[in-house]
């Protein structure tokens, strides 16, 4: 393996600061000053995602979790900011890096953990695992394991919204979350073209954590300013600092509003940095140690904490209590998941089809499909 190079600073041509902590240029939809409760709430969600993901990594190492396991570590501010902007009537589609979105959208952490454990109390009954969180009530219509596979269905969900309702400030919209790597697949371009052509109420959020597995954005995308990639489809894009939940939230609110009211599909690119490997089993040797060090310096969770402390919103006692609460939630999630029953073999064919089907080939391995 070649020596890891330092990553390029994002957006060298435009000079835009990838990690600026300023508000987005649009400035639209800025909430009035956030209340201390709101800010503490965001921080608590960020800490919850952080602690949940660290615990998931630990449980994976202890073989409680199988398969692939991709964590949102380093993306907590993005997750919380996006989910703060998403309204109950909206639909959410995500990539396989979905635990944080599932939790902050409203799924119980213990049921998300139970899904990771492959138990009956998991959010999809242990059918999907880490990459496939889903809750129809919460309109979280799935984490998707195929890179960018969620883009066409998310676009179709927006088509269904346009089919059955009129634009309005409280209209439904779709938020489709994808990673930087997904911007290079055909389905990205086909979906953007359809959304642009048909004027669909959808916001494509490119969570640019600057690495598609081990390949940096500048080694994968001829246009590394990913927010510009909608230009061919007349879809406006904006890049914001994904380490700041308030900046992310306000940019997402503005984008969602245009989707709702103008039926203008939008791109929002959030810049963050994955704190760990692509998945739990990836030691991430392709990263330059300086980058890792810088990422630690920019870690969004302590940064937001410092800001709240500075504003007098969060004192040490409150911080301590908050951490204690989160740790308890996560510990209970593990206990719950551990205690939840494993699915029984008799349930194997339960969800083969949505309808009653004549002549189902429901045979276990080695069984004949036909009696003599």
């Amino acid at each position, binding site marked *: 393996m070649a020596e890891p190079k330092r990553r390029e600073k994002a957006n060298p041509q435009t000079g835009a600061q990838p990690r600026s902590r300023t508000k987005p240029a649009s400035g639209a939809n800025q909430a009035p000053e956030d209340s201390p409760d709101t800010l503490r709430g965001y921080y608590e969600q960020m800490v919850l995602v952080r602690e949940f993901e660290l615990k998931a990594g630990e449980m994976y190492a202890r073989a409680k979790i199988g398969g692939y396991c991709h964590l949102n570590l380093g993306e907590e501010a993005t997750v919380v900011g996006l989910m703060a902007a998403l309204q109950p009537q909206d*639909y959410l*589609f995500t990539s396989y890096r979905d635990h944080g979105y599932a939790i902050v959208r409203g799924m119980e952490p213990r049921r998300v953990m139970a899904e990771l454990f492959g138990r009956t109390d*998991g*959010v*999809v*009954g*242990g*059918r*999907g695992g880490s990459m*496939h969180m*889903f*809750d*129809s009530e919460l309109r979280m*219509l*799935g984490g*998707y*394991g*195929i890179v960018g*596979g969620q*883009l*066409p*269905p*998310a*676009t*179709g*969900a*927006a*088509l*269904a*919204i346009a*089919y*059955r309702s009129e634009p309005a400030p409280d209209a439904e919209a779709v938020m489709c979350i994808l990673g930087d790597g997904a911007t290079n697949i*055909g*389905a990205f371009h*086909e*979906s953007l*073209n*359809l959304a642009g*052509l048909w004027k669909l109420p959808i916001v494509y959020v490119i969570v640019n954590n600057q690495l598609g597995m081990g390949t940096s954005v500048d080694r994968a995308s001829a246009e590394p300013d990913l927010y510009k990639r909608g230009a061919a489809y007349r879809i406006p894009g904006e890049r914001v600092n994904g380490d700041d939940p308030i900046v992310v939230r306000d940019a997402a609110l503005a984008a969602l509003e245009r989707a709702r009211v103008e039926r203008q599909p939008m791109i929002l690119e959030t810049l963050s940095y994955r704190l760990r490997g692509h998945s739990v089993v990836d030691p991430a040797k392709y990263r330059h140690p300086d980058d890792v060090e810088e990422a630690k310096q920019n870690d969004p969770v302590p940064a937001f904490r410092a800001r709240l402390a500075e504003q007098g919103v969060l004192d040490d006692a409150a911080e301590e209590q908050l951490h204690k609460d989160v740790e308890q939630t996560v510990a209970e999630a593990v206990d719950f998941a551990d205690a939840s029953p494993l699915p029984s073999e008799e349930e194997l064919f*339960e*969800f*083969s*089809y*949505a*309808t009653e*089907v*004549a*002549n*189902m*080939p429901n045979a276990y391995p080695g069984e*004949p*499909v*036909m*009696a*003599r």
Partner: protein
Amino acid sequence: MSEPRVITYRQALQETIRAELERDENVFVMGEEIGVFEGSYKITAGLLKDFGPKRIVDTPISEEGFVGAAVGAAMLGLRPIVEIMTLNFSLIAIDQIVNHAAKIYGMFGGQSSVPMVIRTPGGGGQQLAATHSQNLEVWYAHIPGMKVVAPSTPADAKALLTAAIRDDDPVLFLENLALYNRKGEVPDGELVAEIGRAAVVKAGTDLTLVSYSRGMVTALEVANAFDEEGISIEVVDLRSLRPLDRETFCDSVRKTSRAVIFEDDMLSYGVGAEIAATIGEGAFDYLDAPVRRVAAAEVPLPYAKPLELAALPDADDLTRVIRETLDASGFRK
């Protein structure tokens, strides 16, 4: 009920789509050239004028995009009927069909069904060469979560398309260019098939002939010719490849003791292979001769007519194999 009318397979499809659009406002049609152009094979002729662009959606050439969009629209409760110009082009959308449409219900614990239909013609014989002449239906019939139906008559086209549109699971609805102009009796009024049921379309006692879609035309022609010799062939039209009605053709073989499968597709790993294996399980003790398959030669289908004809299975091939099967069991009239 009034007398059945004699209409073409194409008309049966046209009328069924129209009736379902009128019945349920969640039904809509999308695909390439289906609106202004009225469909590459005119199945959607006249629909744009009567139902408007919201329900009859012309798409750009983006099979992965619009098939996947149908998946998402179906998840929100719409019932898209997607036309893919030919089955060959479904390969461009295969991730959305196999990894999404077919998986979403089961993988997400039954929380969201995907009620969509993909209508598409397959098959060779039109001098369209290798990439435009394939029978890929078995690729989809291999996948749990998918349903694959393949009507051979106008009446089944109506009954199965109605059923497919009303079904809550994703259905690949296989058509065939050579069937569009074929005529048959179609009952008026509501006609809904049960997906997953084969039909014995000609009763017989001496040999079971199994086929589907365009293959049924040749199968019936050959079976009827054998009648004149006093040889009685039972013909089973599968109608659905997934789920597969194994009972019906196994029952038939238990009666006739001989089986031949006729398919337009390549032989290896095909529909015939699945049926032969099933007969091996379900009717082994009744067989008087090995189960035979008549399928296409395994080459990329050539353009030149003599080569295309040589590659595709026809009535002569089928007649020969039926005679060999009868001879192998010492059958004497």
